[in-house]
């Protein structure tokens, strides 16, 4: 693949990294929304459930870490893909 200049390459990487974390965050948020509401309901009835409720509520949180891992790879460790990219001489 030939890229016109390094600036736009870094720009696109940054956009990709942002999308990866951001979209994963939205997904995790949507997952937690329902669980959170249910947990609050249960805890109101039975306060002893708080710990387990917290556990359930934090489960989808892993999703955002996946997105973040992808972002980190893009931002800091993209060198493995470097060999496939050539920058066109200006």
């Amino acid at each position, binding site marked *: 693949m030939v890229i016109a200049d390094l600036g736009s390459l870094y720009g696109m990487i940054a956009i990709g990294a942002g999308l990866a974390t951001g979209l994963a965050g939205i997904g995790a948020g949507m997952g937690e929304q329902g669980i959170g509401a249910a947990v609050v309901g249960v805890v109101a009835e039975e306060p002893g459930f708080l710990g387990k409720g*917290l556990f359930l509520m*934090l489960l989808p949180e*892993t999703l955002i*870490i*996946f997105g973040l891992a992808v972002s*980190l790879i893009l931002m*800091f460790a993209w060198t493995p893909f470097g060999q496939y990219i050539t920058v066109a001489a200006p």
Partner: protein
Amino acid sequence: MAGSKDVMAPVVEKLHELRLLHIVNYNSSMPEFELGKPLGKGKEFSEDLIKLRSMARYLDIKSKAPEVTYPESQVVSQMDDLLNNVGAEVNSTFERITEIETEVKSKQDQIKVLRPLAALPLPLEAYHGYDSLAVFVGSVASAVDADVAKVSSVSEVYFASSKNANIAAVFVPADKEEEVSSVLAEHGFAEMSVPKMEGSVDSAISALESEIKRLDGEKAPLQQKLKDLRKQHEDMILAADEYLSIQTQKTDAPLRFAETGNAFVIDGWVPTEQFSQLQSGLDSAANGRIEVQKLEDGEANQLAEHGEDIPTQMNNPKIAKPYELITRLFAIPEYKEFDPTLLIYAFFPIMFGMILGDIGYGIMIFLVLLLLERKFRTDGWRQLINIVKISSIWAIIFGFVFGEIFGPLGLWGRIFGHLPEEEIISLKLQGLYFGEGVYGALGRLGPADMFPMDRLATNAVLVLIGVSIFIGVIHTGVGSILGIKTELNYGEKKHAYFERLPVLLFQVFLTLLILGLVMSMNMALIIPSLIVIVISIAMMVMGPEGPMGLAHVPFYVSNLISYLRLLAIGLASVGLAFAANQLAFQVIMPMLSGGAHTPTFVAIIVGTIVLFVVHFINLLLGILSPFMHPLRLHYVEMFTKFYSAHGGGVEYMPFGHVRRFLKV
């Protein structure tokens, strides 16, 4: 234990005093035994307790740390006076206050109704007392006189509009009432009930207002009286509450026993090392007319395996005690389960510290907690405060490692110093750049001059990814090993070797595999790791869940990746602190960092506000997220490996009462 009914009262007394036996309630499952009956004056005690509690509620007395303690005899002698005289006074005062409040409320409602009527030119008595007339008073959407005239030839309509409503009073002959009512309904008529009063509306309102003022004046001294009563009797009431609770506990205790005509049987659990104390105590209390027996060790184990709820008493060193809060929040460990409190004590603060990792924030949190400690004296709060306190010390330690005081060292370089510019550039070119700060005269320390490690530098992120995953492998690994041990305790060999062990192998060798991939395809690591991973997956398939066990594999992979949050949350907090410092020092007040800028008054004010607000928000987040996320790592990533698989245990709650307001 079994004993003669004659000695039941002294036995209950002794049990209560010893506070050793966790009584198992008799569930009347055996026909030979029936439920016990309450001892002596139980009913009176509970009636008194209800009286006392309602009094405490009127006085708004809540449990608090005791200031004075009373001997039991004093409480008993003052009980009558407290319940009857003081109680009657409190009740009557409180009732009068409620009366006044309802009266004021109804008068205020009347005023609300009267206000709009003031726009109409009628005295109040004009609205009432007709035999042949129907009266409609209320708010309408539009003028009604024309339509009313259509259905009723004789009518009198008063109409006035104020700024938010139109008000109309319509007088018609009684026989036209229904027609007019339907006409009015078309105009959105909402009826108002006019209070039966006389004179002009304005004078009625002012009369009501002065009445309200008088009632409020009467209420104030009554409230003051309640306050005085509360001040005077608060400690005594709490002590009496405690005394009565203890008495009812004792008198109701036989309800939990099994009884025959002449004897009673109590089932219960007691810590093994205190058994002899319980036995001798009861023997002397009952003059030998009681038989106390204990289970053999093996029997208890068998019972536990069959799902009997044996109570658990958590036994941790004093320093790890606060962390029982975190364990308890999830579940009480079962009789044969491992109590994870010590593990939480070992891992939790380090994780907290690694995420927050800032000397400034750490010290701030520590100081705030010292202040909070004086305010919050209940056990739960104490434990929470202690947990965060130990964690904040770790945050300070990691702050030194990362070289952060309210953000990365870069801006605080004045205190600690910087690497020279050309050295930074050459480090960056070599790919060995871990930050530009130095430890004062010591310079940079550690292998490859890694510390102080600026977490925002690329190399530091890569190193910290590695460290996070490493902590993850250790953390989940300990969990898996404990899982194997727990399953073996319960005699579940298949679960131990084909469910827990493969997970351990899988996670450890997956990490080694990734390490091999990162170390420029180190085949000596990759090939053996791959083999072990395949074996572990095969073991999972052979395990108790069969091929369904495979469904868990993604979960085990995500377990490890989840530990990246140790790096990620920290990075977010450094990022915010860094942004705050940049904004304040470089953009708004560049003169402070040596830039060319005339210091203006406005710039300094705005810069300081930005600095304070952003750091304050970051500090709040810096307490919350580093607390929640390690909590999750424990609950989700670690506890699922070994804890609470058999459903939580029951806490050891010995029969008795801790005396707080009564002298022992």
